[in-house]
C-alpha cells in the first residue's frame, strides 16, 4: 500500500527548516512525518496536544507547524496565536476535519497561513506544506 502513495522524495528543502507536527492522533502525526521524511528538514518534532506543542515551541521555535484544531488541553487556534506571539514569521498550516466554512476563515484570521481539510491525500499535504516552505524561503 505504501507504493500507492506518490513519492515525496522528489522534493528537498533548500534551507534547514524545523518542522513541528501537532495532532492528537498518533496515526496522523506518523502519517505526516512519513510524507515529509525525505524532505531534509533540519528537525521534526511532534506533539499530541496544544500544551505539549507550546512547550516544544517555546524551547525551539519551529519554522513550519502543522496544527490540528480539535485537541485536548489547548485547542489548535489558541496555539496558533500563542506561537505567532513567540515567532511572528512562523508558517502554520492548520489541518482540520471541521468543514464548516467559518472554521477555516477563523483559522486564517487568527494567523494560520494555510488550511487543509481532513481527510487529505498525499498530493494535498505535499502541496500545502510546499506552499508554507516557499513562504519561509
Amino acid at each position, binding site marked *: 500500500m505504501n507504493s500507492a502513495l506518490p513519492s515525496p522524495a522528489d522534493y528537498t528543502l533548500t534551507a534547514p527548516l524545523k518542522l513541528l507536527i501537532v495532532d492528537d492522533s498518533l496515526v496522523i502525526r506518523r*502519517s505526516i512525518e512519513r510524507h515529509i521524511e525525505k524532505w531534509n528538514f533540519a528537525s521534526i518534532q511532534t506533539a499530541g496536544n496544544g500544551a505539549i506543542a507550546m512547550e516544544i515551541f517555546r524551547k525551539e521555535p519551529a519554522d513550519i507547524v502543522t496544527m490540528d484544531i480539535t485537541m485536548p488541553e489547548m485547542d489548535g487556534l489558541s496555539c496558533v496565536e500563542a506561537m505567532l506571539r513567540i515567532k511572528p514569521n512562523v508558517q502554520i498550516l492548520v489541518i482540520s476535519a471541521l468543514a*464548516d466554512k467559518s472554521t477555516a476563515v477563523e483559522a486564517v484570521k487568527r494567523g494560520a497561513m494555510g488550511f487543509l481539510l481532513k481527510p487529505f491525500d498525499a498530493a494535498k499535504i505535499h502541496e500545502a506544506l510546499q506552499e508554507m516552505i516557499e513562504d519561509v524561503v
Partner: protein
Amino acid sequence: MKEQDLTSFIHGTRNYFSCVMGSSPEIGTPYLFDCNPIHGDFTASIHVRGQRKGAVFFTAKREMIQRILEAFGENKYDDQLLADMVGEIANTIAGNARESLGDRAVATALRVAADLSSPFPH
C-alpha cells in the same frame, strides 16, 4: 434524526474512504436494530447534540482498520494505533458533517472501544 442528517454521515464516510483508500466504498442497505450497535473490534462514537439528539458509531473489525492503516503508510498495527485510527476516522467524519449540520448539532466527544469488554476506555 432525519434522513438528511444521516446522509451527511454517509457522505462523510464515503468521502473519507475515497480520499484515503483511493476508491469509493460500497454502501450496504440500511437496517434497523435495537441491540448493541458495537459489533466490530473497535468502535468510536460521535454524539449529535441540539434539537435532534443521537449518536453515530463507527465500528470496524481489526482487519478492516489494519487495511486503513496500511493505506496511511503505517506498518505498526498495535491496539493503540488501531484505536487511534478509529477515533480519527470518527472525528473526521464528525468534523466534515459540521458543514451541513452546523457546529451545534455535532459534538466530537469521542469514545473508542478497544474491544467489547471495555467499551469506553476514556
